């Protein structure tokens, strides 16, 4: 994965997306929902970064803030060298073709009153000056690319199955030859059999067009399949970012460990020996995150320091970033194996 010299395509630095909470007669701001809180990462050209985390941890908000579908509170996002957050609306509009998005709910993301041809053609209308015939040819080419029958061009979104709708959404995202696509849980609303088709389609398109993905999902197995590197989010922050194989083989952050222990094992023999870390309690409100480490209220390995100071998001091994006090001392010290043995004691076997 790290064989060639990689050029960063997307650089996110200190991204914060706070939604104000207002109350009272005068709509005074009484607080913030910290949906995305100080997130930084880099996506290299041609790779897929998987972004995982439980519901409500800010994955989708993060993806949308990166494309500036929301106005972020703070931070910088450089896509292909240009800062998206600071860009003027004209610059932003010119940059739109480079970055596109595939949405979670294929039903909701297609205008019910537009035909497939009109939906796929909308980006072409906005950013190109093709003649009617050229546009139609391009629409047909896109439909071929995503495996849609050309005869469907006149139909409306409600006439399609979920998988086909998602293909329409992908075709729309591809229309302007983007470099970077944010896939916001593109498979979450689909059947398992269709999920595979759509994921394979995304992979094929990546190979043939050299696309870069930010793949947002809560399906850990699917992320393992498609992603090159994986970022784990908890309560608006990235707690761990590492190459895929490393993170699945040896998760460092206690939250990642708990998350991965929840993945069912297809092999019944291995399933028997699978040890599940069951987290207690609920995710704290993002409007009022705990002091210190965000995960300290549920962490099986929480220490005194975790309740006091916020851990730094640091590279502790080459390519592996973790935000946890367990690894604060120095990278490569014996802290990690020690922590592992400690965690086996605390795990609870599934079915107990």
């Amino acid at each position: 994965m790290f064989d060639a010299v990689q050029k960063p395509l997307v650089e996110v630095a200190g991204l914060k997306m706070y939604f104000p909470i207002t109350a009272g007669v005068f709509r005074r701001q009484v607080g913030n929902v910290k949906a995305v809180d100080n997130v930084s990462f880099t996506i290299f050209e041609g790779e897929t970064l998987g972004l995982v985390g439980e519901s409500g941890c800010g994955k989708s908000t993060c993806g949308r803030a990166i494309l500036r579908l929301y106005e972020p509170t703070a931070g910088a996002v450089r896509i292909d060298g240009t800062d998206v957050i600071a860009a003027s609306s004209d610059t932003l509009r010119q940059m739109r073709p480079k970055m596109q998005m595939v949405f979670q709910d294929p039903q909701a993301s297609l205008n019910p009153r537009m035909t497939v041809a009109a939906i796929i053609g909308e980006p072409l209308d906005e950013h190109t000056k093709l003649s009617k015939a050229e546009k139609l040819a391009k629409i047909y080419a896109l439909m071929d690319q995503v495996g849609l029958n050309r005869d469907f061009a006149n139909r409306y979104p409600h006439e399609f199955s979920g998988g086909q709708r998602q293909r329409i959404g992908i075709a729309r995202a591809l229309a302007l030859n983007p470099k970077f696509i944010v896939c916001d849980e593109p498979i979450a609303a689909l059947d398992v059999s269709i999920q595979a088709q759509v994921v394979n389609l995304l992979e094929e398109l990546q190979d043939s067009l050299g696309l870069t993905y930010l793949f947002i999902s809560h399906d850990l197995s699917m992320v393992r399949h498609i992603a090159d590197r994986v970022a784990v989010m908890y309560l608006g922050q990235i707690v761990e970012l590492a190459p895929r194989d490393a993170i699945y083989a040896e998760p460092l952050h206690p939250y990642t460990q708990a998350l991965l222990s929840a993945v069912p094992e297809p092999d019944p023999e291995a399933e028997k020996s699978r040890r599940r870390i069951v987290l207690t309690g609920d995710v704290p409100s993002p409007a009022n995150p705990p002091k210190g480490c965000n995960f300290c209220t549920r962490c099986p390995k929480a220490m005194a320091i975790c309740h006091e100071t916020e851990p730094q998001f640091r590279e502790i091994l080459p390519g592996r970033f973790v935000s946890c006090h367990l690894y604060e001392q120095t990278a490569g010290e014996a802290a990690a194996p020690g922590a592992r043995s400690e965690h086996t004691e605390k795990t609870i076997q599934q079915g107990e």
Partner: protein
Amino acid sequence: MTDTTPATAKIRPPRSQWWDVWDQFKTHKGALVGLSIFVLILLAITIGPFLWDMAPTYVDLRARNKGFSAAHPLGTDQLGRDVLARMMAGGKVSISVGLTAMMLSIMLGTTIGVLAGYFRRLEGPLMRLTDLFLALPLLPLLLLMVTLFREPLSKSFGPERGIFLLIVFAIGATSWMQTARIVRGEVLGLKEREFVLAARSIGTPARRMILRHVLPNVLSPIMVSATLGIASAIITESALSFLGLGFPPDFPTWGRLLYDAVDQMQLYPWRVILPGVAISLTVLSVNYIGDGLRDALDPRIRGR
């Protein structure tokens, strides 16, 4: 999927949406009946006066309060004026007032509703303006408008056209609030839908976002309030005529015919029933047309 007519089907270009709309409209029986009745009424009030060329204002005192006869198919009124001619002339005024006032109020209401729903900054001022209009006592306001502007408008546009403009404007300007509120509510919900977000990610500017994504999806409530608007415009016009603030007394409209006949309703019920039925038929047929159009414009219902 390609087993049936593979060659021809593939090269069929996207056809205009309006053909699909017409196909669906044709399947709505009520809408077709409504459309034919409405066309009949329109023909009667446009071509009718040429076929039955008796002047609606010709007073024949010897033929007062006559019943149906060959000379006066629908009888005469208390001044001996021909009711058929008056009905045709009155329909022309009532329907044109109804349609134009409705269009004005729908345009005003839709514009204000969309702007208030889509642009957050405009929401406060525009909705307060709507509340202000809703809180105004409408009848005194209409009376004030008519008394203030009747003379100058009559002078500059001629008495008939001046009053027509005044009444259309007065009705339009005082009936857009419901539409604005309904549209704003719909737009607020629509704005959060993912396809609007998808259009934002494409870089669609606000103007085209409204025209392409918002307006087509708020069409149904607009349609409904438009069809209801025609009815209330015709009725408001009759109320104004009744108060003596609409068109001049000898100038027939359906509303005025109705009110003129009310005094002698027990003796000559037909003179009340005829304009009443005409108003109801128009309103009903327009409602059905609106209903059919609304269904036909929704691709999810189309083809069912």
